[in-house]
């Protein structure tokens, strides 16, 4: 156990070991049951079909870390989707411009919601519940409650693949190239992480731990590359996977290393202490809500491209998928804890679960029930372990493997993080009776 912790704990390596185990378990179970899960076509399909969950999960984890929730993402996605579809079908905007327009709408919608949450201090639950109605209505009003197709050229961003080039080895060359780049980056990162540890005066991890970790991560990368590269002719790495990759890297960087990231976790962990450390919590809340709507708009645009048209029921229930991904991925209901990587893995768990269930031919209604139960159990487990002063789901699964960087099991004993007034501005009387 100790040695596994060495490999996956701390030190810039992967910290979501338990979640990965859950993901691998789900994939293996369905692979055994159907023999299809790890089929290249199926894997590509999972990414095409469920990329929206992963894109939304990135924004949602930040919202939840800040201590809020966003119930409007599905409606916002649909709202942006119909406007983008209209702009191309009716106003004949070229598709790149239509995408810019979609992003602008996302920013405006986000600013609207952020304003109410951050500056008027209406709970995000209410603001986004209202948003859910408003933007669903907006979608149906603009689209007359009918589906509107989008031009072929636009569908690339949702259903397209990297175009092939170079000699034909029977695999997609660009995919192989990207796989190679990822492997190189992983190795460089590991070496730099070791160097950093040395500079910080900490003893570097044993070389074998680094090597084993690299072998595992690179192995996964190589296998994924193989899957994406060996699909049906004409397929390769989906464009959405690239969009997703860029978003993951960008937002991991923002949340892990920037001042904004620090402020985000500070506000979520203890908003009063954050304010008294000079953090502008209103600005953080505003930006987090704004950002969520922008990501919702991206998810909406990708989905419209994937399905070829924008319809009145697009995005229904997405908020729940995104929220579930975040909580399955180890975020705390009370805020302050949660990571981008964790949420992505949580999202993949849900995606492969849904995919597997449909592969074994589970009734669609049953699928809903099962996904609901998975979410409930994951969060119940989290809450239960907090009450008991034990680590959270992820913490529980990983407690023998990793030491949490965020100190996720802080609830031991006092649990005061959850009992604090949410903000100095909200409840001054609680501070000084």
């Amino acid at each position, binding site marked *: 156990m100790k040695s596994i912790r060495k490999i996956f704990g*701390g030190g810039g390596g992967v910290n979501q070991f338990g979640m990965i185990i859950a993901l691998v378990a789900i994939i293996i179970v369905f692979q055994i049951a159907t023999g299809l899960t790890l089929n290249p076509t199926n894997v590509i399909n999972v990414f095409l079909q469920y990329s929206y969950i992963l894109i939304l999960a990135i924004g949602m984890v930040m919202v939840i870390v800040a201590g809020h929730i966003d119930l409007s993402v599905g409606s916002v996605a649909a709202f942006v989707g119909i406007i983008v579809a209209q702009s191309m079908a009716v106003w004949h905007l070229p598709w790149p411009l239509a995408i810019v327009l979609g992003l602008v709408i996302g920013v405006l919608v986000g600013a609207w919601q952020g304003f109410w949450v951050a500056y008027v201090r209406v709970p995000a639950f209410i603001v986004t519940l209202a948003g859910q109605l408003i933007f669903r209505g907006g979608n149906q009003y603009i689209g007359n409650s009918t589906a509107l197709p989008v031009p072929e050229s636009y569908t690339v961003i949702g259903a397209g693949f990297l175009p092939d080039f170079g000699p034909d080895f029977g695999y997609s060359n660009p995919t192989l190239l990207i796989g190679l780049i990822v492997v190189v980056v992983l190795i460089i990162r590991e070496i730099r992480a070791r160097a*950093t540890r040395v*500079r*910080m*005066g*900490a003893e570097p991890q044993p070389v074998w731990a680094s090597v084993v970790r690299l072998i595992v991560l690179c192995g996964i990368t190589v296998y994924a590359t193989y899957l994406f590269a060996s699909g049906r002719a004409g397929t390769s790495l989906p464009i959405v996977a690239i969009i997703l990759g860029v978003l993951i890297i960008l937002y991991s960087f923002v949340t892990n*290393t*920037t*001042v*904004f*990231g*620090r402020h985000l*976790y*500070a506000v979520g*962990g*203890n908003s*009063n*202490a*954050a*304010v*008294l*450390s*000079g*953090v*502008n919590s209103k600005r953080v809340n505003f930006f987090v809500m704004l950002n969520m709507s922008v990501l919702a708009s991206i998810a909406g645009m990708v989905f419209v491209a994937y399905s070829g048209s924008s319809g009145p029921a697009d995005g229904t229930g997405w908020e729940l998928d995104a929220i579930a991904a975040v909580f399955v991925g180890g975020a705390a209901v009370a805020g*302050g*804890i949660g990571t981008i990587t964790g949420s992505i893995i949580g999202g993949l768990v849900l995606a492969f679960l849904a995919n597997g269930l449909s592969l074994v031919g589970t009734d669609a209604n049953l699928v809903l029930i099962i996904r609901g139960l998975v979410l409930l159990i994951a969060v119940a487990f989290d809450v239960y372990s907090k009450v008991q*002063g034990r680590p959270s789901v992820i913490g529980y699964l990983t407690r023998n493997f990793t*030491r949490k*960087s*965020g*100190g*996720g099991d*802080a609830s*031991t*004993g*006092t649990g*005061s*993080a959850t009992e*604090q*007034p949410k903000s*100095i501005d909200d409840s*001054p*009387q*609680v*501070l*000084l*009776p």
Partner: protein
Amino acid sequence: MTGGPTILEMRSITKEFPGVKALSDVSMTVAAGEIHAICGENGAGKSTLMKVLSGVYPYGTYSGDIVYQSQVVHFSGIKQSEAAGIVIIHQELALIPELSITENIFLGNEPSRFGVIDWESAHRQATELLARVGLNDDPDTKIKSLGVGKQQLVEIAKALHKSVKLLILDEPTAALNESESQHLLELIVGLKGKGVTSIMISHKLNEIEQVADTITIIRDGKTIETLDVKGDGVDEDRIIRGMVGRSLESRFPERTPNIGEVFFEVRDWNVQHPLDPSRMVCKNENFVVRRGEIVGFAGLMGAGRTELAMSLFGHSYGTYVSGEIIKDGKPIKVNSVAQAIANGIGYVSEDRKALGLNLLDTIKRATVSAGLAKITTNGVVSSVKEYETAERYRTMLRTKASSVNEGVTKLSGGNQQKVVLAKWMFTDPDILILDEPTRGIDVGAKFEIYGIIQELASQGKGIILISSELPELLGLSDRIYTIFEGQITNELTAEEANPESLMVSMTSKRTNVR
């Protein structure tokens, strides 16, 4: 010992957390009907021992035996220990602010008839319980409108309702003022008369000397000795010797003040209560701080010292009405905390868990959290500089932790306080406001923190020290202002100030400011 039969024996208790052995082979014996004090430095393992006893850390997570009323007990949770008559009152009070006193007392075992809560009976019983603890507030009062002292009494009333036999109090008086503390101590002595055994953890040695029958001293997770207060003629110095393993020459480090000219001035400062505009929490307050000076602020609990400090610190409390802050001859604006920090003001809050720290942080994240700009280039926080900074302050302040990657919740109270101090020292303020900086801190660590405060002053910073412990104010301050009901009532030099003169100005409206 008071000679009663043994009610509790803890035998060779060992408790390990990942990476730390908090208790190793600790034993103690408590006689029925005594007040048994536990003393030890911060992080010695006192709270951990009591959490083991009360089932917070359930049976199986520690090794050793707990023999309670002649039986080996295995508590799997706090419910079971309470059923056996052991009630723990944690230092962080566990009352629900939005509920009334009655509701809090009966929370979890409401008197009911056919499932309907019998409020009449609850109310009657609550009134009786409150009378027993000497609290004459209306039982319908909401907890949030009570001060900490009264909340503490409600906790005890709640314990009495659970027919407590063994009452555990973890630093019960840490947040109380002198008279509240006295009341509480008398209450504990009174309970002893009625057969309730108490175990009390405290860093206020004078209180222990006053009420305890027996003292168990713990150092580094081990029992050092057990003292019989009456029999052995134990005094504070004797306790300190046991705690730190040597005698402390004096309670305050030597210092020759080097005081410069006035550089920080507050003029006609008026602030309203945040919810009730008709109430002024700061009334026309005027004061000055000189370079290198430690300025004390004395006042009763609720006098408005914290309110003043927080309103100066970026208007973070109340509604600012009027007033000016002059620093280095120029008026400065402090409309937000960020602005106050930028203008060289730092504020160490009295409530480190609610206001001072994000308990989810690691030591290194907490240390840099108010001074991120200093280790940031282009919006990116340097993890190397973060580590180096945290490590530097850990060595400087001698914070006890296995590494700066440790979560702050895992630290004992005193070490958490050092992290908060480090956080504000790192912002390098010109004027540092310290609000109860040694609350819940052991004598040895206090001495160290006093040394740090004096060192900061000798660097030419102005220190504003708010404290409810008069000896601390008298021992450190070069000048003391007294506050009563939001007004500065007097200004005393170190020579003029003594407990009597301070008390007079702290409790009267007479203003006598030069």
